[in-house]
Every structure is written in C-alpha cells, then in structure tokens.
C-alpha cells in the first residue's frame, strides 16, 4: 500500500484489499488526504508566472529578487520554469535571424530514390535534392515550364511519425523572393518588382507545386500546423537551381 497513487498496487495487495474492510478504509483515507492537501496547497507558495518572469529579467526590487531566489532553490517546478524563462530571455529582443518558428532544413548529402514521378515525366538529371530536419524530409525538384520559367515540385514527409501526407493537407508553401543585389537602384527595383511572392497549397500526398517560377533568389517556407520550415536561400536561374 506504500505505493498508492503511483504505479498501482501489487496483485496480492489488491486481493487483500478486496477482503479487508479495514485496509480499504485506510487506503481511502490516505488517498483522500493526499488529494485534498494537493488541491489546497498546489503551488500556493510559488510566485506567479509574471513575477517569476520579472525575476528572471531582473525587474524586481532587491528584496523581491532575494525572496524569489530562495524559493527557486527549494521548488523544483519554479526552478524548471526559471530555466525555460532564462533560455527564452537569452534570445535577442529583436530577431536578427529568421522568425521564431522556422526550422531550417539542411541538405541531405546522399541521394535517395524516393521521388514520386513528376507531373511532366521529365525529371532533371541533377535532381531531386533532399532536405531534412529532425522530423521532416523534403524532396525538391524542378523542370522547365513556360518562357524561361520553372516548375518547382516538392514532397514533404514526416520522419518520426507514421503520418501520411494528409497531415500536411491544406498547409501553405511560400516562395518568398529575396532582395536582389544590383549596382544600380533602378535595376534592383525592376528586378525586385518582377519577383512576386508565390504560394502553393500542400495536397493530401504531401506534394506542393509552383507551376511557373521566374528566375531569381527565393526563400522557401512551409507553414505547417505546429511550426514553419524554411530553406533560406535558393536561386532559380532558368531551369538550373543552386541551393545553399
């Protein structure tokens, strides 16, 4: 009975409890008192999240800082929250890199044969390219489209979970043009206005298609339910693609 409330009681204890009214009553008293005290006391001595945050940012008075520091030494829950908060506060105030939820996709060096047939049936010799994060894999390919433009195809899958493409259905993919480096402002302005942001919807197989992409430098963003994925820079030049 010592383990009540945790991993369950041993079978012989359960058998005894069925037969013994005294032990049944005793167990109920143990449980009831524990639950009652927990309901009344749970984190009643802890500073609220706001004060703990201000403590971590050093925004409280000296006395309050000392009080909370002493509490954090005793309370493992607050100590854990302080660790999370400090990690959060360690970030620069104004993001200097990409926005928060963006998980950068890295190039997978080895080619694998996972590409499903392209719609036009004419895959480039150098592609597909594979990208991955801890959880996701993205396969990308291009083929020629109309008037010097390219069609960009992708297939997204989840590595760790047996999710089909349906998990991504309806999520948005964005090709975001990057600003062009040119000598003359007029050239730069012309080049930048020619590139518009392109969007595509991921289908129930995890496929995404940008049918006509003008040459230029882009960032690829995939807005998933829990987070966004990013490939920071890709240059589409005619039908040759250079990834960084």
């Amino acid at each position, binding site marked *: 009975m010592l383990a009540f409330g945790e991993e369950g009681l041993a079978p012989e204890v359960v058998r005894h409890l069925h037969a013994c009214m005294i032990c049944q009553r005793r167990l109920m008293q143990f449980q009831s*008192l524990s639950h009652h005290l*927990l309901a009344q006391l749970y984190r009643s001595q802890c500073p609220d*999240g706001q004060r703990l*945050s201000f403590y971590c940012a050093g925004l409280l008075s000296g006395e309050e800082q000392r009080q909370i520091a002493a509490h954090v030494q005793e309370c493992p829950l607050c100590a854990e929250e302080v660790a999370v908060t400090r990690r959060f506060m360690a970030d620069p*105030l104004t993001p200097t890199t990409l926005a928060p939820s963006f998980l950068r996709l890295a190039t997978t060096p080895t080619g694998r044969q996972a590409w499903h047939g392209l719609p036009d049936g004419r895959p480039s010799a150098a592609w597909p390219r594979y990208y991955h994060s801890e959880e996701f894999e993205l396969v990308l390919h291009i083929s020629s489209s109309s008037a010097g433009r390219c069609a960009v195809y992708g297939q997204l899958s989840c590595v760790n979970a047996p999710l089909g493409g349906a998990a991504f259905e309806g999520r948005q993919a964005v090709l975001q043009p990057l600003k062009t480096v040119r000598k003359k402002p007029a050239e730069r302005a012309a080049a930048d206005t020619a590139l518009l942001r392109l969007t595509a919807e991921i289908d129930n197989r995890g496929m995404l298609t940008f049918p006509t992409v003008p040459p230029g430098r882009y960032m690829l963003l995939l807005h998933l339910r829990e987070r966004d994925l990013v490939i920071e820079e890709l240059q589409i030049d005619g039908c040759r693609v250079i990834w960084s």
Partner: protein
Amino acid sequence: MGMQTEQFSSVLELALPTEVDAGGAEAMSNREAEQRLAEERYGLEIFQRAILEGDQQAWALLQDRFSDLVRAWIRRHPKREIAIRLDSEENYIAQAFERFWQATAFKQDLQFTSLAAALSYLRASLNGAIMDTLRTYARPREASLSTPGYEGVSVSEDGDDGGELWEILKSLLPQRREQYLAYLLFHCGLKPREVVRYCSQEFHSVQEVYRLRRNIVERLLRQADQLRWRLSVH
C-alpha cells in the same frame, strides 16, 4: 490564411537583413544607423506616452506596432508547441499587452531609458502569460473529498489560500526532511519517483519516499482533528 500571410510577411521584413550595394555600403550603413536611431527614439516615445502618460492613441499605436514582434517571440518560446495547443497566439499577444500595462502603467518611479528596456518588460509579460497558462493546465485534478473517516480541511470557502494550511502542516511535521517531502508531494504535486529524480541528494530511493510519505500521512490523519480545529480558530 491571407491575413496570416500578411502578418508573417511583416515578421520577415523585421527579421531579414537588408542587402546593400557594395559601392554604397558605407553611406547605407550611416543612413541605416541614423534610421535605427530615429526608430529607437520613436519607439521609446510611443512606450513613454502610452504607459507613463496614459495616452490611448499611443497605446493603440504601441499594440499595432509591436504585435508582430510579440508574435515572433511566441514562436521562439521554448514551450511554444504546448502553449499554442492551449491558447491562440492572438490571446497570448493580448495578454502580454494587458499584463505589461498592469505592471507598468502610471508608475511614477518607472522610467524606460531605452527601447530595449521597455521591450524587456513586454517580453517578460508575454512569458508570464505563457507560463501561467501552462501552470493552469498542469494543475493536478482535484479529487472528491467525501471519504469516511476523513472529511477534509478547508482553509477558506474558495480554498485559494494555502499559506495558512501550509504553516499548520509544517508545525505538525517537526522534522525538516518530512516538511520538505510534504512540500514536494503536496505543494509541487510530485510523485515519489519524481521526488527521487528531482532531489536525489536528499531522497535516495523511492522506497524511502514511500515510507516517509506513509509516516507523514499517518501523522496528519492522527492529528486531523487538531488540523481542523486550528484552521477554524485562525
């Protein structure tokens, strides 16, 4: 979806470094520095007028101007994935501004010396909103207390003041180790295995925690009448 894209776009504008021509880099750098300084002054003035002077227009402008930044912070938060399952980004943003207002408005001794200082307050307010939301959902479910032989003790009608109960409990547990274990079990809601994991220096095995817990509970049950009486006379 369209709206989300627009919001996302402005976060990108904020986040992406601006590229410059190689030839005009120095001039651009000077211009950028001046522009940043002007933006810093402007941003700081919005905060000061909104918070210290209670200017409603400035407050609306402040929310409009910094909402995307708050959203970007949410997306960088270590607990983001759990947090957004529990509440929407919009609610966290609204809460962050509300808490920021409550913490700072009309406080004469408060002076923001830089935009960064004001933003630190705002970010701490956002973190407070997220952490409090997570706490609410982490709270153990309260159990029924109508058990024969133990009718429970209530500190107050709404049961929201555990300080008094905790002081009485401590007085009934003379040993420091028992007090600390009671704190971990009933205040922190840790299971015996978690106690050993978090406080392995103090408690070496789960069997030891089981035994100490039984001692504590039995002692409290024996003194339940005293517990009730002491609460009733306070």
